[in-house]
């Protein structure tokens, strides 16, 4: 991973068309401004992780009464 130190107001360019600027730094988070072509999807990591998890979820094994009981215990004990 390329690591670059930047101060508030400074930016980095990715190729010719994408700019990432540090807008604000607070103790717990950094506010970024991103300029990118419309065709480039900019998503937060949580969004990508959720999409990946949904893909895994859609491929879940078929649940049966037995597998539910194995997971959660007998009815009423979940």
């Amino acid at each position, binding site marked *: 991973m390329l690591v670059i130190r930047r101060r508030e107001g400074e930016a980095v360019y990715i190729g010719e068309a994408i700019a990432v600027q540090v807008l604000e730094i607070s103790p717990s988070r950094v506010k970024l401004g991103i300029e990118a072509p419309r065709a480039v999807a900019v998503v937060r990591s949580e969004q990508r*992780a*959720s999409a990946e*998890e*949904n893909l*895994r*979820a859609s491929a*879940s094994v078929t649940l049966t009464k037995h597998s539910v009981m194995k*997971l959660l215990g007998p009815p009423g004990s979940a």
Partner: protein
Amino acid sequence: MRIFPARIYLYDGKLVRTLETGEFGQLTYTEEDVLVFPVGLAGFEEYTHFLRRQPPALAPFEVLLSLDWAGLRFYALPVDLVVSDYQLSLGPQERALLVLGAEDRPSHCLVLLAWPENEPPTVNLLAPVVLNQTARRGLQVIQFDSQYSCRHPLRERSASCS
């Protein structure tokens, strides 16, 4: 791929449709049973119509079945069964999509099960599926400022437990 229902018939003044599924057999439903997810689910944005079913044999698991893509289904659990004090955060835009007022509470908050073959089962606490059953709306709400995991383990219990 839009699924065309196998049959449509009139019953008690309502149009009843049937959906053939491999796992759950033939299901019947009316328009009132259809949950609309205006922006789909993460990674599945184009699939916006789902049926929610609660097969007794799988309780407390529920199933969300896509009406737009044959075979797309998600198992879900009420979040309270996984984390008793789950803190759901809903912003104004999310409330608008769910047709919820500022003080309204959603009817259900579910977490999706991911249990691919040969992997341990997990649930996605980071992105619960929130329902407003009255308005028949659903939304997957990513909890951006939380510490919740998208792979929260569901530990298998011993089969011999009683």
